[in-house]
């Protein structure tokens, strides 16, 4: 840890928790409790690593309060709650573990703020499975990247630079190419890009056509979803010719009813392609540690969210059949978490600095793993997890410790 008031230090290979790419090659300067990204940053990391001098005050109903006062208020809310919901908006592994422990004890539920987006992928895994890959495989092996309805630079600012650029690769990936489908833009690409423009909501039609062509069916249409048939035929030919193709999408970008069927259709195409060549899927996750929440919840309970403990056993609740709840704990240690949706129940926020301005009944500032706390996050591919470093010490508790305190207080009868 590089603490100490007047000391200044350069720290190498710092992991960044602010998007699902978890770059860990940042070079940062830490001086008088402030962090400046010197190398290998992006706009987001530069912004989010810079922490204000002052730590925010805890608050009760928007008014500054002592930590103890905010905790007591939160405990009061939880004492009168029957089934609280604890929502991650960036909790690390320790945070999710603490969320599960508390929810289990209180017959509450555990959720992630982006769960309904992630569910578009999860449903496909639960129903059919898929063939997937990870970032280093993409970097070294892929000669074709198909992006489906995703503005990759917005989700993962350094993805193209790190995984599909002109940098070194083990096998000399050779001629690389990006095919971009739907409402996707590819800024920062250093390889040829071909666009097949259509609305994201029409991607199901595009992938139905892809699957039909892969099955050697003839399509009697000049265009599919506004895309000329020849273009889709060319796409399919390119996919079949790929030595190692990768299909990437963001579930968040498939924002229309039954988008899971689109993912299903993509998975089917990739399965078919693997009969002759190698092709794999790369789901692009969100910036609030949704993969971390799903991983820890799954190994502890078998259920990847939303998990509901009201009946004493962990039960999966799917979107549209959510568990009811009468209080919310919103765990938002990452600055990527925005103001939570409006709930008609008391709201406890364990959050980053800016969360102080959210209208919470109780607000407890918490440390950010990777900035002023250690902690583990999973990368988007769900394989690599990294230990975040504590770069500065602002005297804030990690979310897991706050949840632990709430749990301990609830053990004692009022």
């Amino acid at each position, binding site marked *: 840890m590089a603490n100490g008031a007047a000391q200044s230090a350069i720290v190498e290979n710092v992991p960044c928790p602010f998007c699902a790419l978890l770059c*860990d090659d940042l070079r940062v300067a830490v001086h008088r409790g402030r962090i400046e990204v010197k190398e290998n940053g992006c706009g987001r990391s530069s912004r989010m690593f810079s922490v204000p001098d002052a730590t925010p005050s805890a608050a009760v109903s928007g008014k500054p309060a002592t930590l103890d006062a905010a905790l007591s208020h939160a405990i009061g809310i939880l004492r009168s709650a029957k089934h609280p919901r604890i929502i991650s908006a960036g909790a690390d592994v320790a945070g999710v573990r603490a969320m599960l422990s508390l929810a289990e004890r209180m017959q509450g539920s555990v959720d992630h703020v982006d769960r309904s987006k992630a569910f578009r992928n999860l449903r496909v895994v639960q129903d059919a499975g898929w063939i997937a890959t990870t970032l*280093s*495989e993409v970097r070294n092996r892929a000669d074709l990247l198909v992006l489906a309805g995703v503005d990759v630079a917005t989700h993962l600012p350094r993805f193209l630079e790190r995984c599909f650029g002109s940098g070194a690769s083990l096998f000399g990936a050779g001629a690389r190419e990006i095919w971009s489908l739907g409402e996707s833009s590819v800024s920062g690409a250093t390889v040829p890009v071909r666009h097949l423009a259509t609305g994201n909501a029409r991607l199901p039609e595009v992938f139905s056509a892809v699957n039909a062509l892969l099955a050697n069916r003839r399509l009697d249409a000049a265009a599919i979803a506004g895309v000329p048939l020849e273009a889709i035929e060319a796409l399919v030919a390119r996919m079949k010719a790929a030595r190692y193709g990768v299909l990437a999408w963001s579930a968040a970008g498939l924002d229309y009813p039954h988008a899971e069927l689109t993912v299903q259709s993509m998975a089917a195409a990739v399965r078919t392609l693997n009969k002759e060549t190698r092709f794999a899927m790369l789901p692009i996750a969100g910036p609030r540690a949704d993969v971390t929440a799903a991983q820890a919840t799954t*190994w*502890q*309970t078998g259920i990847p969210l939303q998990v509901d403990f009201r009946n004493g056993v962990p*039960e999966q609740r799917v979107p549209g059949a959510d568990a009811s709840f009468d209080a919310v704990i919103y765990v938002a240690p990452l600055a990527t978490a925005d103001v939570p949706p409006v709930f008609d129940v008391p709201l406890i926020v364990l959050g980053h600095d800016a969360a102080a301005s959210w209208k919470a009944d109780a607000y407890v500032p918490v440390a950010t793993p990777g900035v002023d706390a250690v902690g*583990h996050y999973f990368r988007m591919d769900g394989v*690599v997890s990294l230990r975040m470093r504590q770069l500065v010490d602002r005297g804030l508790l990690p979310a897991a410790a706050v949840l632990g305190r709430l749990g301990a207080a609830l053990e004692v009868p009022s």
Partner: protein
Amino acid sequence: MIRLKGGCIYDPTHGKQGVLEDLYIDKGRIVPMPPAHVTVDEVIDVSGKVVMSGAIDIHTHIGGGKVNLARTLLPEDYREHAVRAEGGLRAGGGRMVPSSFVAGYRYAEMGYTACFEPAILPVNARQAHMEMGDTPMVDKGGYALLGNDDFLLRLLASGAEPRLVSDYVAWTLQATQCIGIKVVNPGGISAFKFNARQLDVDDPHPHYGVTPRRILGALTRALHDLKVPFPLHVHASNLGVPGNVASTLATMDAAEGLPIHLTHIQFHSYGTEGERKFSSAARQIADALNTRDNVFADVGQIMFGQTVTASADTMAQFRNSGHAHPRKWLCMDIECEAGCGIVPFRYRDANFVNALQWAIGLELFLRVKDPWKIFLTTDHPNGAPFTSYPHLVRLLMDREFRNQRLAGIHPDAASHSELASLGREYSLYEIAIMTRAGPARSLGLKDRGHLGAGAAADITIYEDMADRERMFSSPEYVFKDGEIVARRGKIVKSVPGGTHVVRPGFDRGIERPLREYFERFLTMRLDNFPISADELVECGSREQLVHPCGGSH
């Protein structure tokens, strides 16, 4: 101090075969009989009961990415087998792939006190340790997966000196906090990424030109040179392929006389005889084990019913995906290291192939003469969930029971197998070897797997019942580190477990080419890769348990 009075001791490490003797436990360890003036705080009468050390599972997939993917793929396993939070125990569920807490409880209920996760991808080691950290009751250890990673394949392709391979192996053991090295389908997982669908022991890798034989030779040599107690743990080429007996024997040869452990060897003991072109090669494989001092194996017994196969062997899993039941499966290429494939499977006794697989596994158990050379596993969950071990013990110990079962399987499979002619019944002593003393010796755990003074007081005490399945399902007492943690098959106290590791010495010079490799090709920096002893504890381990290298194999 606790005195266990009058038990019938089965301690193969000390040659004790049903000896009536008291045991003394103090501060978590087994201690010699104390002098008369020492106060014994508690006397537990275990007269007539069978006393063994805690059981050790040498090969069980209980933690890490593939296990969690299997859970994700199978929500039905959790809907149907939910476990309530009660008595201070955590909720969870699952029968095929139990949740982390539940896996620990189920193992301890059966008298197991240590479990070894056999397929830890180095890059996924953190996750594996986090999951195992949330698996209470048992100590854990892991085998790091090498032999499909591009770093090693590049080393071998460039003709690197054995010393460099050893340094890399030792560095990997340290960085991943593991106790052994495993290779899965040597070179084959990597070859599949190059679109190869098969790689036999002497086939050159499509990119590196290196053969599986060369990979096996290099890794067995490295572990030998590093004096790592546990031999190379090998999931051989051609898993599940009829006729793979040839490549299994070639895999044994590839070790060139150095110690090698072939895992789930049942899946690698198939011939091509008969009209279905699928036959038992159990006799050939058992003969090889019986005549080669350097070869060890665990069986990977299958049991009839629904389970799920989870393996790093993407080449085999993709090939077998058509057999998925229910019809869903996953495959993943992983980080220039290996891969992972999850295929749910239902073994049916009325299916010729499955029935013969069942018989082949049992044949192997019964034909391998030395129980120190063969270990009891179902390759959980691939052959069956680990909770079927008591049933398997009964199959081995009770010939009549076994033959009744044999009568119920596909008649052609029964007649194609020589199982009916094998009259052997395992003794309690042999079971104690196969599930305790043998694994501990193989892994180099000097203070586990036995009941001598100085051993960890991991002790399992059974009622001696004729029904061995019942007996082994719910031991009377299970002690973990000197505390009673289970009584009559129910957990009475949840305790955390430690992590067994080895730390062979090596030349840190290996970090120079590694650092360059990571920076040029991978998407993670070398500095962020290793797991420190402190981080292991953050992951959930009670403590790091370091075992020495340098003993004789």
